[in-house]
């Protein structure tokens, strides 16, 4: 395959950055998207140029690092996958492909396609945990009965990998799907009840302080989420938030 790539290049956080064009020949449709970028980077290195910085780690859709906005869509054109799971057969010979970093004020660009997603970590630290006494007398997990439905729904919420595609694709850069998933995964389980009110209050407060936008319920996040996290999680968070506020 022959491709024209239009890639965002930005030296560092302060640089203004711009789109730079690259031509690639001989790309196999069986390559993954990241392998295609590896090929381009090797060519740049061979020419003594600065390779394109991009995040990646597991390359099997579980770490959530590979954040790229490809041809106007988070993680590219296919549904429920990350960029590392995207293959060149999803494109055609002669295509022009735009590759940009996530755009959100709360996710500043560090270099090229790499953004700082530590805002998500701070939201998680604000309440995405349960406090357990681990001083040697922990009880057997099976002593706490959980309905199959609650366990399944909590597990679905817990599959969020914190990739940030929801923020990137939202017209408001809202983090509601991520935070909704994190709040839900605990709200659905008995272990999460003790700190439920504080959790949702603190996580929403941190989310707002980080500068993410408000939710307009466009549903773009749900469509672009590689793990199929449902909007029901946002509704659940809204309920939890209202409940916590009514408690005072």
């Amino acid at each position: 395959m022959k491709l024209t790539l239009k890639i965002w290049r930005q030296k560092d956080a302060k640089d203004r950055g711009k789109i730079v064009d690259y031509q690639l020949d001989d790309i196999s449709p069986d390559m993954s998207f990241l392998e295609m970028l590896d090929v381009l980077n090797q060519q740049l290195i061979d020419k003594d140029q600065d390779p394109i910085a991009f995040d990646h780690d597991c390359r099997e859709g579980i770490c959530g690092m590979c954040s790229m906005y490809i041809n106007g869509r988070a993680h590219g054109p296919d549904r429920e996958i990350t960029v590392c799971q995207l293959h060149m057969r999803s494109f055609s010979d002669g295509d022009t492909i735009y590759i940009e970093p996530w755009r959100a004020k709360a996710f500043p660009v560090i270099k090229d396609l790499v953004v700082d997603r530590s805002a998500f970590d701070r939201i998680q630290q604000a309440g995405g945990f349960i406090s357990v006494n681990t001083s040697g007398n922990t009880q057997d997990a099976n002593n706490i009965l959980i309905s199959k439905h609650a366990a399944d729904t909590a597990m679905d919420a817990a599959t969020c990998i914190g990739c940030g595609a929801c923020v990137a694709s939202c017209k408001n850069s809202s983090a509601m799907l991520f935070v909704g998933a994190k709040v839900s995964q605990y709200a659905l389980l008995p272990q999460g009840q003790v700190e439920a009110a504080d959790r949702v209050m603190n996580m929403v407060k941190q989310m707002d302080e980080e500068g993410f936008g408000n939710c307009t319920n466009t549903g773009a996040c749900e469509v672009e989420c590689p793990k199929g996290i449902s909007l029901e999680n946002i509704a659940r968070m809204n309920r939890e938030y209202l409940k916590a506020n009514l408690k005072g």
Partner: protein
Amino acid sequence: MSGIFNSSIGRKFAMALSAFFLMIFLVMHVSINFTSVFSEELFNKMSHFMGTNPLVQGVMQPILIFGVVFHFIMGFILEFKNKASRSVRYSKNSPSGNSTWMSRNMLLSGVVILAFLALHFYDFWVHEMTVKYIDGDMSGLMDPNNADSGFRYYEELREKFVSPLRVSIYTVSFVLLAMHLLHGFNSAFQSLGANNKYTKSLKGFGKVYSIGIPAVFIFIALYHHFTH
């Protein structure tokens, strides 16, 4: 509860509550207007009641005005904040692949509705207020000095729909209202945390409501225009 409306979720609660209020109001408004299609007398009676009842005028009307103003000011605030949360735009963006045009352009459809409301206020409300509270004529009669002259409301309504320009503006605005509601109706439920086993059927009802109510408003306007 302190500070809830300073939070992103709280602002959406407020938006959804004001929207629910407006959606209920629309049902009332369209029902009364519709009587004008089949009974001049009923329409006149209801208009006179709504226009002179102290509860409607003194309590419900101020709440309604507050609701509308609150809704659109909050709409602007949300839009402003949301724009500010992304300082650098994408060079290439294809949002049509993940969301509807209606959902992404609530402010646009809202502003058209707002422009319409301004015209509507000028047409009916300013006139009503002038006649009733400035001229002090609470009779609702065509000729306040002649008890047999009949109510003026129906005639005034017919009068407004003579102009093809006004009828066109009216029609376009209600098409935009339908689009606003096609996203807004279900969005309001989601904002209040209602997303459950009823959501699917509610979506169907939302479509009927969102297209049905504006369609009846348009029908009423066209009816009076073409039968004048």
